[in-house]
């Protein structure tokens, strides 16, 4: 079974940009996170619909020149640990 990843829908977070970093308030957890690239782009991609890791990479590749694609699992794990991404 392939894990699917989902991010909170728009409106579930408040965002502010600062010098290339994203200040993010996550309403459901009450936590504030500082996000470094590529985390904000991953959240954006997953906010529309849950995706598998492969689908996520394809979505990112459509918008960006993706480097070190093999690290996507690590990035997802960080977001899952912070509760910003859930799996099903």
């Amino acid at each position, binding site marked *: 079974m392939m894990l699917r990843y989902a991010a909170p829908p728009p409106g579930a977070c408040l965002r502010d940009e600062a010098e290339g970093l994203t200040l993010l308030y996550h309403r459901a*957890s*009450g936590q504030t996170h500082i996000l470094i690239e590529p985390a904000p782009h991953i959240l954006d991609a997953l906010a529309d619909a849950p995706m598998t890791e492969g689908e996520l990479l394809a979505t990112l590749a459509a918008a960006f020149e993706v480097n070190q694609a093999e690290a996507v699992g690590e990035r997802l794990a960080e977001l899952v*640990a912070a509760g910003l991404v859930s799996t099903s």
Partner: protein
Amino acid sequence: MMDARHLAKALADPPYVLGLDDRGWAALLAMAQAERLAGSLAVRLDGLPIPAVAREVLRNALVTAETGRIRALWEAEMARRALAPLRIPVILLKGTAFVAAGLDAGRGRLIGDCDILVPRDRIAEAEAALLAAGWEWVKPDPYDDTYYRTYMHELPPLIHKDRDAMIDVHHNILPPTARTGRADAAALIAGAMPLNEGLFTLSPEDMLVHAAAHLFADGDLAGGLRNVWDIDRLIREHAEIEGYWQRLVEAARRHGLVAHVSRALRLTHHLFDTPVDAFLAYLPRRSDVAFMSRILARDRWGRETQKALRFAFYVRSHWIRMPSLMLARHLWTKWRTRQRSR
């Protein structure tokens, strides 16, 4: 001499506060903070023409309660996510359950740890999954650990390493060593009500039995007023449901907690004028007076009063949890540990 009846009156009958002078307000607010009932008081007094400072204090308490509510629901959600792959049902208990189910008892309530109930035969799996998801043991103290695992109805407390939040994983609502009660965990789980996606609460009647058990069996009655207030809120919300009292009697019998529930009903009726079932509440007992005094032992500065009575209840809290030989051994071990570390 003023006691926490002052606070109980304000909670039960909000217009009571309209007659207060500054001194009365100062006492009320200090007692509410001390009993951790300021948020609940804020909910009750909402909309009444009260002095500006009192409004500000109560507003503070509401903000604190709201932050606590979000945090509690988030801990429940993270526990759910950790246990979801194992398909272990997560039954929320106490404050977390009240806010998750949107009950009156949860409005303005401060919530401590996240308490959950899982089936006993799955507790080892649940423990492993939580440890894998970032929870850690709070105390690596081997005696305490053995004590919990052997004699308690819950795992030693776990804390999440990133979120600093504690979770108590129960497999029952009473310790197996308790002198009274033999809570039927299987029945609690069978009667649980689904909330959303993998989270449950106890049935209304089991929720009340648990609140009563918690009030008497699980502590030295510190913070007792808040526990009785929970009971008042639960009864007022659920008593309307057809057959509630009958099911409550059955649940209390099933778990061997008729005396607890009965006394809880008498206390809440006495303190908050809660409408209770006369059959189940039964007749007052002489010892009710001591319980009442213990619960109301607060002065106008929010200080605890009745030191001797408090100590009696402290000893009682250990006494009721375990047979006397075990109690002696427990106190002996605690004492020895303290001596050795001197």
